[in-house]
């Protein structure tokens, strides 16, 4: 039986981990390789690096960051941010990522999911979906939340999986950074709609929130600030999950 995964997320800009990215109040949270290694030692099941500064001219720096994280990291590494084409994905995988996370580019060009999955395998392709509640449903938002679309988030998750996504990284955009807990209804709806694993993101302030998300159907939970701030450790979270009867890695 698969264990429930706890995944610290590193938002990286210019080679440094930053906090509060989505609120434009950046604070430095250290060196990505050191942070990743620290969380791995705490028992993290995986690391996600989202490079929010992934412009064309910064790609070289991003590859160096990925390589330095890889050198020390004995657990899976997912990298996302600004991946537009096969070449960008290939470069990241070659630098040491095990998976790439596609977001806006997959919405614009859904065929990219198929091409990457066909070339690198479904296990290497994560489709990240940022969803915002609209009425009784959820719509996809793109370009770091700045652009709303008419696309239904659950239908897009189904299509992404059909096109070859190995996992769905599901962020409730209106929850992100609010510390009000994950969007449980959204998690449940997507987890029921697809067969691939679903990683819940957005809104976590405590291990209790993670328990809720996993019970709602998530296979993994992702969080950033609660780990960066040292409020809790991955090991603490796993102890709480285990005490609630959820199977975690030992």
């Amino acid at each position, binding site marked *: *039986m*698969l*264990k429930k*995964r706890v995944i610290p997320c590193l938002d990286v800009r210019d080679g440094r981990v930053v906090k509060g990215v989505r609120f434009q109040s950046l604070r430095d949270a250290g060196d990505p390789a050191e942070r990743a290694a620290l969380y*791995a030692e705490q028992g993290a*099941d995986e690391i996600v690096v989202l490079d929010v500064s992934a412009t064309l001219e910064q790609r070289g720096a991003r590859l160096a960051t990925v*390589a330095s994280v*890889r*050198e*020390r*990291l*004995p*657990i*899976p*590494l997912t990298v996302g941010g600004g991946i537009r084409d096969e070449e960008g994905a290939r470069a990241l*995988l*070659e*630098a*040491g*990522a*095990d998976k790439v996370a596609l977001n806006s580019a997959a919405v614009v060009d859904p065929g990219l999911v198929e091409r990457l999955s*066909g*070339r*690198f*395998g*479904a*296990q*290497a392709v994560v489709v990240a979906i940022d969803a915002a509640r609209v009425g009784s449903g959820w719509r996809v938002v793109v370009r770091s939340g700045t652009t709303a679309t008419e696309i239904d988030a659950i239908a897009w998750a189904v299509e992404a999986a059909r096109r070859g996504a*190995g*996992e769905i990284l599901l962020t409730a955009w209106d929850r992100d950074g609010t510390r009000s807990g994950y969007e449980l209804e959204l998690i449940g709806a997507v987890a029921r709609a697809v*067969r*691939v*694993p679903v990683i819940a993101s957005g809104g976590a302030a405590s291990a209790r929130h993670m328990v809720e998300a996993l019970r709602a159907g998530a*296979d*993994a939970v992702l969080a950033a600030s609660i780990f960066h701030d040292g409020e809790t450790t991955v090991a603490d979270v796993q102890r709480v999950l285990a005490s609630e009867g959820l199977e975690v*890695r*030992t």
Partner: protein
Amino acid sequence: MNAGTEVVVARTGVANLAAVVAALRRAGARPVLSDRAGDVRDAGAVVLPGVGSFAAGMRALVDTGLDLALRDRVRDGRPTLAICLGMQLLGLASAESPGVEGVGAVDARYARFAGEIRVPQIGWNAVVAPPEARILANGDAYFANSFRLDRAPDGWTAAWSGHGGSFVAALERGAVVACQFHPELSGAFGAGIVERWIAAARREVCAC
């Protein structure tokens, strides 16, 4: 004790090798990438990594002649570590790519996971190894696969895991190890397997 042991990592063109190379370095070995059949045939120790599809993986092995080199190595019991798709490629066939013949060094046919479970299997799962295992052990390992082997081939020591039913997590015979999981991504548990395999490879080489 594994310091400086040269390990040839078979470059199949479909696998990203950085994690395997990093894990070998952390274990004290000296990884060397090669897609030359001669290197793979003659090396003291070989890793066959693999991600991607069965058909693409076999095409890369056949194009380079690595298929025959690997078949001979495994049949002769020479130190070899096959990972994920690499394990499947050593078998006879996979339902992922009907009609494509595997390397054929292991009597194994792979089928897709069935049942009301997540596919691909992506994440950590418990591995149970029998007491006679020398390199494999009990612990949690990271898997990323849609196809699996549900029967242990004769002559191999098998470790097991479960995802909608039991499947073979890894096979071991002397210094030949085939893992469905990724030891290079399986934390301290995976590092232990890599270290014991390198140690076994060194013993084989020294015995020659």
